[in-house]
């Protein structure tokens, strides 16, 4: 019976193509808008998460805030203390940083200078364009070697390879000079939330603290988690421990994973909100469906009369028209999904993101449009089923 009604509905749509197309437009636009917004939402979330994950999704960074209480606490040895504060930490690499001016015979560049351990490059997923990073031994020996970010390398050595050349670091107000050998240049790497990799230079931590700056304060502890541990849980434990030592205003923690989570929560609720607004247009589309169904019932009064004379019960007639409304909204829903996908594909392309299709949005949109179909198809179908068979038969 459903199948018969479905075929009848397609017949009815075929006989009044223009009218059907116009009343479908409302549903197509409504479903299209919902699908497009949900797809854009999921694409934005994906892109934010992706760029945050550049910094490593299993990394928590702790930034000491210099104040009275933190004075003398955050040195290199504090790594070991922190290490024992919680399970789940695989390594902690302390990083010191400051500004530095670098000079070659021809060029000068100002950059942020990081003193870090040899493991830093691995934990940050850094790759090398030429040369390599420094070794653990070079760190222990406080060798004067440097790895350049790609932009700095281009500024200082615009025409030739930097590796093997010397650069001069000019430190502090009195301009003390140190000569370093370039041993590696990084590939270009997209900027993370807290790091501009291309505009930094990297030297061994010991070299930094013993030879360049007579200051033992660590600017960042980069904590890499053991696999299988949840960033949020470990982060909570670290925060609790830090609170007990320096108080909550003595440090800040940052983890790409948590920021990504927050960001995706925000975009998710925002896109649900926008989709709900788009849903209103679906409702308007539903009124269009009701309109075409009322017209359809009116102009098929005779047909309804004939069907009743042949033995169609009121519920059968009602079923026929509800299935017709459902078919209309289903077709509208499918066209709307195609429309919504094209729309979100276009927007994503213009914005330069990658498209992440949200399959839930298809189910939501089609489900909602079918509910609209049943809701707005019900009244016309009831009218049809209640027609008096004699009057309907004599209708011209």
């Amino acid at each position: 019976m459903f199948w018969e009604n479905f075929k009848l509905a397609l017949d009815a749509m075929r006989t009044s193509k223009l009218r059907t197309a116009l009343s479908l437009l409302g549903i197509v636009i409504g479903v299209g808008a919902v699908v497009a917004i949900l797809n854009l939402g999921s694409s934005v979330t994906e892109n934010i998460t992706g760029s945050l994950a550049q910094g490593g999704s299993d990394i928590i960074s702790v930034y000491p805030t210099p104040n009275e209480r933190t004075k003398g606490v955050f040195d290199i040895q504090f790594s070991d203390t922190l290490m024992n504060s919680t399970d789940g930490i695989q390594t902690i690499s302390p990083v010191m940083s400051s500004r530095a001016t670098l000079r070659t015979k021809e060029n000068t560049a100002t950059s942020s200078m990081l003193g870090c351990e040899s493991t830093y490059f691995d934990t940050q997923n850094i790759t090398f364009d030429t040369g390599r990073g420094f070794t653990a031994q070079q760190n222990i020996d406080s060798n004067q070697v440097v790895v350049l970010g790609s932009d700095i390398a281009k500024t200082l050595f615009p025409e030739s390879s930097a590796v093997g050349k010397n650069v001069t670091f000019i430190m502090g107000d009195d301009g003390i000079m140190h000569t370093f050998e370039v041993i590696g240049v990084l590939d270009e790497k997209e900027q993370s939330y807290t790091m501009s990799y291309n505009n930094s230079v990297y030297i061994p931590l010991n070299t930094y603290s013993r030879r360049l700056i007579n200051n033992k304060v660590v600017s960042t502890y980069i904590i890499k988690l053991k696999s299988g541990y949840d960033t949020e849980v470990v982060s909570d434990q670290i925060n609790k421990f830090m609170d007990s030592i320096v108080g909550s205003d003595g440090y800040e923690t940052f983890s790409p994973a948590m920021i990504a989570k927050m960001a995706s929560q925000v975009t998710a609720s925002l896109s649900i909100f926008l989709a709900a607004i788009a849903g209103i247009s679906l409702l308007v589309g539903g009124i269009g469906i009701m309109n075409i169904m009322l017209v359809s019932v009116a102009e098929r009064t005779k047909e309804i009369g004939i069907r009743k004379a042949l033995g169609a019960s009121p519920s059968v007639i009602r079923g026929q028209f509800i299935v017709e409304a459902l078919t209309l909204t289903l077709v509208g829903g499918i066209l709307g999904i195609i429309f919504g996908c094209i729309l979100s594909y276009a927007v994503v392309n213009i914005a330069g993101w990658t498209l992440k299709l949200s399959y839930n949005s298809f189910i939501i949109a089609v489900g909602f449009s079918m509910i609209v179909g049943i809701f707005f198809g019900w009244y016309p179908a009831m009218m049809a089923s209640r027609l008096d068979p004699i009057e309907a038969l004599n209708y011209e």
Partner: protein
Amino acid sequence: MSKSVIYLENVKRYYVVGDFCVKALDGVSLNINRGEFTSIMGPSGSGKSTMMNLIGCLDTATSGLIKIDGESTKGMNETELAYIRNKKVGFVFQQFNLLGRKTALSNVETPLLYAGISPKRRKEMAMDALEIVGLKDRMKHKPTELSGGQKQRVAIARAIVTDPSIILADEPTGALDTKTGGQIMELFESLNLQGRTVVFVTHDVKLGNMCNRQIHLRDGKIVEEY
């Protein structure tokens, strides 16, 4: 097989129109047995259409008893009436009343659809019915591609396809020329000879004379019967 197929006992059908009460049928009693070929005759306004609607279960009586195939229709709801129409009554109308978008075959299949018969069996039964009326070769045609006589044959096939207790025809030749009308009448006669109960509603005396039995109505009452 002299079983009663249509039984009316003091049937009244009144309509209230504004302040007036129109007595369309005013106490009619009647019995029609299986296999009879009856015509219900009378001028327009005599109540014959009302009678047809009541016998065809498109309408219910204001008072009195109607039994179709031994079953009283008193107090039946719309769904139950639809069931009786589907199983017991085959309508043939003056204006054919075919579904315009459907082929002859699916027109004939329609009552079987409402009887809940499987698609395969529906097709077989509809083709058999079209064969009886001599239109099997036209089953893929739509009503617009058929002549008046052919349309009425399709309508007759549709009326007999469920093997109903009554074939109820309302001026079945009214929209046809004399020659075609005569052929349709012959078809009804042959259906009657095969044992089917046929009831005509008509004002055409010539048509009435072809039937075994005539019932004349005037002002909602039976005035003559033979």
